[in-house]
């Protein structure tokens, strides 16, 4: 079974990538299994400076999912370059740098610093976070803003740029097209849906940040729908993410038009899930009559 997937900048040995924020920089999971088994790793969002993130509680459970408002806690790009990337260089897997910021310039700063690292194979712009320059709205919610940060990132970047879109929009296709036109090499769909939970005893939001991002199986139908709609409207590859728990879920995303996938919160439910999915995938693909990952991509609309 041919599990290989070739995408701009990424030579994946299989289509399974732990999603940004759900895998840190891989150190903890390396105690459980060999990270070289993974197709790639999307590391935690990097910002120009060290960020502490939001107050706690930062997570809450929901039916078939969870909310999080970590607030992009990360050691800052310099420390990532100094301490994390050399360590990650020891594994045979494709490292994707997820890039975030409070302004467009932040994205450029982070990218320029990462450009010379041979460990990083591609960038993934996290444009879902609230942006201070634009009154706290996410760059990912307006086509012009999404296009602008993409164009700036592309200009700065010496490696392919993927843009990770926010699902909290009226028309995902409009945003995807704007980003494609601005030069994106690929798309990652989807980030979390905005949600909240209220504590019955206090009457106040459980998450200190009030709202949080909903992820997990609960959002899978929304993610599959967005990949399906977008895949038919753009000519750049899509990495699907949202609620994946097993190889069957991966196949559903491939059918919808994703070329590879990321696995997020399920790493918390079953810390071995990524390697289990990689093990199961050949059997599942074979069961449904495929001899490679590529054959299943976009089957739902072809």
């Amino acid at each position, binding site marked *: 079974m041919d599990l290989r997937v070739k995408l701009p900048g990424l030579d994946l040995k299989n289509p399974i990538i732990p999603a940004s*924020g*759900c*895998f*840190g920089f891989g*150190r*903890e*999971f390396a*105690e*459980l299994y060999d990270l070289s088994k993974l197709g790639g790793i999307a590391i*935690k969002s990097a910002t120009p400076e*060290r960020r*502490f*993130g939001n107050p*706690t*509680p*930062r*997570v*809450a*459970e*929901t039916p*078939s*999912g*969870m909310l*999080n408002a*970590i607030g992009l*806690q990360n050691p800052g790009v310099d420390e990532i370059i100094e301490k994390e990337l050399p360590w990650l260089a020891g594994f045979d897997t494709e490292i994707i740098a997820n890039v975030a910021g409070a302004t467009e310039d932040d994205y450029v700063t982070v990218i320029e610093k990462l450009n010379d690292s041979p460990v990083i194979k591609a960038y993934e712009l996290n444009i879902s976070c609230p942006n201070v320059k634009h009154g706290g709205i996410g760059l990912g919610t307006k086509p012009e803003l999404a296009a602008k940060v993409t164009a700036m990132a592309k200009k700065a970047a010496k490696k392919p740029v993927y843009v990770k879109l926010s699902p909290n929009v009226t028309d995902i296709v409009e945003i995807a097209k704007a980003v494609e036109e601005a030069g994106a090499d690929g798309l990652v769909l989807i980030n979390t849906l905005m949600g909240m939970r209220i504590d019955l005893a206090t009457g106040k939001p459980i998450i200190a940040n009030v709202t949080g991002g909903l992820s*997990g*199986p609960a959002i899978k139908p929304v993610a599959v729908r967005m990949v399906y709609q977008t895949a038919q409207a753009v000519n750049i590859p899509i990495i699907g993410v949202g609620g994946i728990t097993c190889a069957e879920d991966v196949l559903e995303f491939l059918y919808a038009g994703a070329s590879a996938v990321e696995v997020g*919160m399920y*790493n*918390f*439910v*079953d*810390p*071995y899930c990524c390697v289990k999915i990689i093990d199961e995938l050949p059997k599942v693909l074979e069961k449904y009559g495929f001899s490679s990952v590529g054959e299943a991509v976009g089957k739902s609309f072809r």
Partner: protein
Amino acid sequence: MQAADVRVTENIKIAKDTYKMTMEWEKSSTMRPGQFVNVQVDGFMLRRPISISLVPDRRHFVIVYKIVGEGTAKLSQVKAGDIINIFGPLGSSYPIHDDTDSILLIGGGVGVPPLLELARVYKKIRMKTYVVLGFNDGESVFYEEEFKKLGCEVYVATMDGSYGVKGTVMDAIEAADIDSTFVYCCGPVPMLKAVEAKYTKGYMSFESRMACGMGACMACVAKDKKEENMYHRICKEGPVFPIGKVDY
């Protein structure tokens, strides 16, 4: 740390809303007092962090948990013979000091369980061990006998006075005039605050809402009390910290 399917050998009620569950796991001997396991509960996504309460022999370990929500309620329905999935042992453990005269273990509610394994370890080196346990009421009291059997000097306080000293653990410490200054403490935040106000030497355990339980997601962090830019993951650098280390 590792995820494993383990067999439940006992799951019994030991006090009001409080259950003791024993599991069989061949790696139980790797568990240290203060560490926890992340327990998968059928029908729920996130695992539930529960302290390791006792490692009675190399192949078994015990947890004690209180029903506070849906997950722990479901856990209480597990039967002997059932298989559940645990992930652990996780986090830091209570460091053992043999250079002190005596130690004082202070536990409140479901903060009591991890202290039992700690007492067991200390009793192996014949340390003079005071134990003060605080509960809401007499019906909630558990483990008094277990600590006594190990040879500890045990005092109990209840908020409503229905058992032991009426009041908090601090009241009980005062009443018994315990002079030990090296403490290990686990319990609710007000208790931790009171202990921190009186003692400067020893260790404390913290709780936090967790997702991964292994240090990868940054759900559970707390700031350092002194250093501006330093933070600690309760699940990884913790749950045990030296007194005065963590800003909570």
